[in-house]
């Protein structure tokens, strides 16, 4: 079963759609979907959160069926542009350094989430997702950060039903993020 099928079957849509152009304010997606103080929210609330974020795509599709939107960038260039402001002349490329650190560090958190999902260990999921969310947002791979938010907000009872699906989403978006970061890295050092 594809990720798209899996997500559609459980009422989710690909989270990549959350940064559909024209989303409020044209801001980076980080923070748009679920900046909520709730420590744990219900499965219905998560569904509503995801579906609300995906509304532009559903409207654009017009059929209510969710499709992959390949125009959604895995890497938010506005975040990179902001980071570039901290670049000093004569110093190593800050963005390349941050990309290298991310690609070295982030996979362990993806695997930590996978292991915790397999064990239905909600506390470990939240801890790992929280860390990955922070670093992902910092380097501009905001879809990964968004999925981490969903992991953080999934309550224990929902974990069995949603853990695998979210994991599939995370795997897919993390691969897109890795590819985009490597492309950006190559571009900057060439």
């Amino acid at each position, binding site marked *: 079963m594809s990720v798209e099928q899996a997500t559609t079957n459980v009422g989710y849509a690909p989270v990549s759609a959350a940064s559909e152009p024209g989303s409020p304010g044209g801001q980076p997606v980080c923070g748009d979907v679920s900046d909520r103080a709730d420590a744990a929210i219900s499965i219905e609330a998560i569904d509503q959160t995801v579906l609300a974020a995906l509304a532009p795509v559903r409207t654009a599709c017009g059929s209510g069926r969710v499709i992959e939107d390949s125009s959604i960038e895995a890497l938010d260039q506005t975040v990179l542009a902001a980071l570039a402001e*901290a670049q000093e002349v004569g110093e190593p490329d800050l963005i390349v350094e941050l990309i290298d650190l991310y690609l070295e560090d982030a996979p362990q958190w993806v695997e930590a989430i996978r292991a915790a999902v397999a064990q239905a260990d909600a506390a470990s999921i939240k801890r790992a997702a929280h860390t990955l969310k922070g670093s992902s947002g910092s380097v501009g791979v905001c879809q990964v950060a968004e999925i981490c938010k969903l992991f953080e907000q999934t309550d224990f009872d929902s974990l069995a039903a949603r853990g695998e699906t979210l994991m599939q989403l995370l795997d897919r978006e993390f691969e897109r993020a890795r590819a985009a970061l490597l492309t950006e890295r190559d571009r900057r050092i060439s």
Partner: protein
Amino acid sequence: MLTTITPQTNRILIADDDPIIRHLVATVVKQLGYIPVTVGDGREACHLMKVDADFKAAILDMSMPYLEGIELIRYMRTEKRLKRIPVMLITAEPDIRLLSDSFSAGATVFLHKPFTPEQLQAALRMLLGTRSSTRRAA
């Protein structure tokens, strides 16, 4: 052995388990003319501060292994050597209660992740331009 506190110290303690945030914060700290001293978790920060109070400010992540940022602040506020050090707490938690608790514990400035270098610079200037008793949200 306790180190001597230099009145005009330029060192800023950065404690975060995320190497990306650590590097980014250290870069901005250096740009502003200060010397970053980085550690990777709360326990390491605590151990360091037990023997070294020579910091102009501290930038602490809220969620760190072993010892969270807010607990570190509480510890710092009980130590005469460390009381004077203004603290910026950074967190990815958009929680108003956390903000309130942080200020109650003694945080000086609160910065939400993810942040831009410009936002961090502004927060740092705020942190270094205020006394530790003055509390603001960045």
